[in-house]
């Protein structure tokens, strides 16, 4: 798995490539918390387009990012969910808890 961040206006976009599981979810968690809690970015957008698999430890990192975002009054957005990512969020009954968009343009345009 590779993870990198880039800036687009006031939005910080986190690009994740590869499977997210117990082996590498701590890394995602770290990047999310660094940006939301330490750098206090106002808006963080997670690009999951290149993530074919995500397990509950990955979901837990996303939930933690969302909760910390709420505490910091920043915005937490997901886009590009693969069928696998969508299914695990649906099975966890979390799909409605997240702000989810189809693609990057829609995520950036969200007001």
């Amino acid at each position, binding site marked *: 798995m590779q993870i990198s961040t880039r800036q687009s206006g006031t939005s910080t976009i986190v690009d994740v490539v590869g499977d997210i599981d117990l082996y590498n979810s701590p890394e995602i968690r770290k990047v999310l918390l660094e940006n939301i809690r330490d750098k206090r970015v106002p808006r963080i957008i997670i690009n999951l387009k290149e993530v074919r698999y995500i397990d509950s430890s990955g979901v*837990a990192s996303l939930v933690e990012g969302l909760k910390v975002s709420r505490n910091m009054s920043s915005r937490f957005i997901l886009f590009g969910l693969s*069928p696998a990512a969508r299914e695990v969020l649906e099975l966890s009954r979390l799909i409605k808890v997240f702000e989810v968009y189809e693609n990057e343009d829609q995520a950036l345009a969200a007001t």
Partner: protein
Amino acid sequence: MAFSLKLELPSHPQVLSIVRSAVQQFAIVVGFNEEECRSIILAVDEALANIIRHAYDNRYDQTIELTCRRLGPDLGTDPGKPLEEVCDGLEFIFVDHGRSATPAQMKGRDLDDVRPGGLGIHLISQIMNQVCYEPGENGNQLRLIKLLNRKKQ
């Protein structure tokens, strides 16, 4: 025909992607569709991750035994296992020698409370047709069954 694979795995998170690859191909060979394959992989991954984290407390040098067995109409003549007599599918048996879970823990938590963690057991039981957990002196055994012809659903 009996067709089963037995894997002896280290309790290391790097093993997860390797097992997912093998299980995905096994599920394809048995005839599950893409969506079913995805969910089977998820359930197996969650079961292994739970053993690594809870049974072995993140000690990565322990052993997990995983048997993947294709269920067929000519198998499962045990009267206690009626589902297997009529159905094709896959059975996964995980054995660990770590700390046992209690029955209450293996039920999972209330999902209405949105917080990180506590999802694994729910995912496994939603995906699989049968989930049996038996703690024991000679190892804890978790048995998952996913049927190809879900006649009972």
